[in-house]
C-alpha cells in the first residue's frame, strides 16, 4: 500500500511555481527522500501534504484521505518535524511534549508517561526540566522529533532534519530515523545533503525548481549512471609498479595506479577477477582487497539534474553558516 500518493500537485506563489505538477508515491514502511537544492520546493511540498498550504491544482492523499478536503482526518496519522524547531521557548521539555500529545487528544496520564519515556530515549531526561529556549540546536531538533512522534504517527515527515546542527547530534538523529523506520514508521524526509539521502533512503526523488526530475530506487539510479565496471585492488606491499605489465596482459582493461599499493581497473565489460588473481600470484604479490567502485549519489544527481556540484556545495556551506 502507498502511504502518500501525489498526483500533479502544483503550488503557485504569483508567477512562481514552487511545486510544479509533481507526482510521486511513498510506500508503506519505506524511507523516501526528497533531494534538492535550496528553494527547490521541498518545504512547499511538505506544507501541501500536511495541511499548512493549499494546492493551486492537483491532489495528494495520505492514508487514503485527500490532503485538501479531508486533512483533519489524515493529520492523526502524521507526525511533522519542521525545518526550524517551533516548540514553546518558555516551556520545558516535558511540558512541551505533554502539550503536543494533548493536541492529539491523548489523556494526561498517558501523555506524561510517554513524554518521560521519549525524553529518556532521546537522551534528554535532564534537559526535560529546562525551558526549550535554553536548549542547544541539536537538543532542540531532537525534542522537536520527539514531539512529532509522541502520538505514534504512521508516517513521519522530516524537513531537513540534520541541517544546521552538530555532527554528533546529526548522527544520533539519523540513527533515530532508522530505528523508527525499523519499527514500522514510514519516513518522508527532505534534504539537500546528498550523503544523507544515500545513507538513509530506500528511494529518492530529485527535485529542482519545483519539478521532480527523477524518482527511483537508490541502487537502480546508481547502476544507471555507472557506464563502466571499476574494481580497485589493494596490495600488501607495493604492486603498483606492475601497472605496465598488467596493461600488456589485459589490453581491454584500463589500468591506473592509485598510490603505491593500489591499482584501479576499468572496463566496459564485466571484469573477470580469476585471471587477474592468477597474474598477481605469479608475480608473488598479495592482493588483500578487491573493491567494486560504485558511483556516488552525488554523481547520479549531477548527471541527472545537470546541477553543478559546486552549486550544491556552496548552498550547503551558505546554509551551514547561518
Amino acid at each position, binding site marked *: 500500500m502507498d502511504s502518500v500518493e501525489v498526483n500533479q500537485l502544483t503550488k503557485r506563489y504569483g508567477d512562481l511555481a514552487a511545486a510544479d505538477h509533481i507526482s510521486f508515491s511513498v510506500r508503506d514502511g519505506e524511507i523516501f527522500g526528497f533531494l534538492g537544492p535550496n528553494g527547490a520546493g521541498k518545504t512547499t511540498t511538505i506544507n501541501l501534504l500536511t495541511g499548512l498550504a493549499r494546492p493551486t491544482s492537483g491532489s495528494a492523499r495520505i492514508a487514503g484521505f485527500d490532503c485538501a478536503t479531508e486533512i483533519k482526518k489524515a493529520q492523526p496519522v502524521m507526525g511533522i518535524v519542521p525545518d526550524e524547531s517551533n516548540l514553546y521557548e518558555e516551556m520545558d521539555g516535558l511540558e512541551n511534549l505533554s502539550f503536543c500529545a494533548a*493536541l492529539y487528544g491523548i489523556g494526561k496520564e498517558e501523555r506524561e508517561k510517554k513524554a518521560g519515556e521519549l525524553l529518556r530515549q532521546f537522551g534528554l531526561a535532564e534537559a526535560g526540566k529546562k525551558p526549550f529556549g535554553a536548549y542547544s540546536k541539536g537538543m532542540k531538533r531532537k525534542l522537536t522529533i520527539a514531539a512529532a512522534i509522541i502520538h505514534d504517527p504512521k508516517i513521519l515527515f522530516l524537513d531537513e532534519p540534520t541541517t544546521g546542527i552538530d555532527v554528533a547530534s546529526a548522527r544520533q538523529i539519523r540513527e533515530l530515523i532508522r530505528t523508527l523506520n525499523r519499527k514500522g514508521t514510514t519516513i518522508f524526509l527532505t534534504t539537500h545533503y546528498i550523503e544523507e539521502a544515500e545513507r538513509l533512503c530506500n528511494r529518492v526523488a530529485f527535485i529542482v525548481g519545483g519539478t521532480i526530475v527523477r524518482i527511483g530506487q537508490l541502487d537502480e539510479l546508481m547502476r544507471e549512471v555507472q557506464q563502466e565496471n571499476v574494481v580497485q585492488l589493494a596490495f600488501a606491499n607495493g604492486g603498483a609498479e606492475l601497472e605496465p605489465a598488467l596493461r600488456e596482459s589485459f589490453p581491454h582493461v584500463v589500468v591506473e595506479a592509485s598510490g603505491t599499493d593500489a591499482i584501479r581497473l576499468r572496463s566496459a565489460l564485466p571484469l573477470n577477477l580469476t585471471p587477474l588473481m592468477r597474474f598477481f600470484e605469479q608475480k608473488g604479490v598479495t592482493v588483500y582487497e578487491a573493491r567494486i567502485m560504485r558511483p556516488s549519489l552525488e554523481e547520479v544527481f549531477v548527471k541527472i539534474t545537470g546541477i553543478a556540484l559546486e552549486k550544491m556545495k556552496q548552498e550547503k556551506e551558505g546554509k551551514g553558516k547561518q
Partner: protein
Amino acid sequence: MRSWIAFWNILMKDMRNYYLKPPNISWGIIFPVAWTLMFLLKSPTAVDVRELLPGVMSLSVLFGTTSMLSVTLTFERRSRSFERLLLAPLDLNLLMLAKTSGAIVFGLINAFVPVLFAAFLTDLSGIDWLPALGAIFLIAVTSTLLGLFIAVSVKEIFEAQTFSNFFRFPMIFLCGLFIPVESLPIFLQPISYMFPLTYGADILKSSISQNGHLGVPINFLILLAFAVGLFAVSVRNVKHKWIY
C-alpha cells in the same frame, strides 16, 4: 472528547504562558485603577463611583483583550509554534475558539478588578448583575474577536499594538460611555453604532446606573450577531491567510 482535551490544554497553556504572567496581571490591575483615578481627579464635583463603573469596566475589558490576543497570536505565528496547532487534528473553529477563550477569560478577570475597588468605595446594591455580566461577557467576546481580526491583518507585534489602538481610542469616545451618543455630532453617530462596545456599554448603563436607552434585549441580539459575525469572518481569514 479527544478534541476537548486539545481545546482545554490550549486554553490552559495560553493562560499560563501569557495571561497569568506577572506583567499582564499587573497590567490588568493598574489599568482599571488608573482609569478610576483619572475620572475621580478630573471632575470638579464629587463623582458617583457607580456612574463611572460601566465605563471603567468596559475599558478594562477592551484594553485587556484586544491587544492581548493579537500580540500573542502574532508572537506564535512569528515563532511558528502556531503551525503546530494548525497541524493538529483539531477543527479550525474549535482551535480558534480555544485561542479566543483564553483572552476572553482574561478580559473577564480584568473587568472585575474595578468592581472590587468600587465595592470598597460605594454601595453596589441594586445593580442588575445578570445583564451586566452578560454585557461584560459579550464585550469581552467582541473585543477579543476584534483582536483576532487585527492579528490576522498584521505581521509584526508592534503593528498589532498600533492597529489595536487605531480601533480602541475612537471606540472609547464614540461608544457613549463618556459622551452620550445623542450628544455626538450627527455625522459621528452612525460610526458609534458600528462598534460593538456601544451596545455593551448601553446594557451596562441600564443595569448599573439605569440610564441606557436602546433596551437590553436589542443590545444583546446585536452583540450576539457581532460575535458570531466576527468569529466567522476571522476563522475564514485564518483559513485564507494563514494556510497559504
